[in-house]
């Protein structure tokens, strides 16, 4: 695969309630391994994926949130969060596991427009 395309992964769902967040991460890692231009976007309930302090022992599901911290090691460094989504959930950047770029609705819309491939979860 010599072509490099802009891949955006749009995460709109909370973790654990469904598997989408976990299986999305698996695609992100592979896409980065194929040297594509990867952006991750967290919108709506997707911002909950980045919440610090997840402790999953009581639901017997593996806590996969440390993987977000590992993304940097795979050269996945473009993480975007929609400000409006964060605000509506009572979250601030301090609540998040990793450093992110906070975008307004207009900025996020413009960023989506310029992608080659958008995968949503």
């Amino acid at each position, binding site marked *: 695969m010599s072509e490099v395309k802009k891949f955006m992964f*749009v995460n*709109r769902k909370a973790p654990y309630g469904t598997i*989408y967040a976990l299986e999305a991460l698996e695609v992100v890692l592979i896409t980065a391994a194929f040297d594509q231009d990867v952006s991750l976007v967290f*919108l*709506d309930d997707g911002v909950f994926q980045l919440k610090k302090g997840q402790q999953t022992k009581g639901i017997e599901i593996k806590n996969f949130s440390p993987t977000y911290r590992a993304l940097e090691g795979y050269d996945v460094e473009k993480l975007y969060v*929609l400000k*409006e989504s964060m605000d509506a959930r009572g979250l601030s950047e301090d609540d998040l596991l990793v450093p992110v770029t906070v975008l307004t*609705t207009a900025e*996020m*819309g*413009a960023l*989506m*427009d310029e*992608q*080659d*491939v*958008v995968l*949503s*979860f």
Partner: protein
Amino acid sequence: MLHIVNKSPLENTALESCLNLAGAGDVLLIEDAVYAATVGNSFEPTLRAALGKVKIYALQPDLDARGMGDRLVAGVTAVDYSGFVDLTTSNKNCQSWL
């Protein structure tokens, strides 16, 4: 950009998020999202307001299946599957709001 939405706006906030974010692109309603484009539902005002910004399409086979083929909000364009394909080629990229 083509935005594809498949959830009823009376149950799920996906369409609302999409309309908030969508720039000057096209929005296609399929599956349960077609209810959003039918006359008299409580989401209709939001949909109408968005018509000033984006072009909105609804999949006719999904409208018909749900008995809503004759209730399309004025300003929304009905398309068949062939029209759905054309929307994906006339836009340079697309996104499904799952």
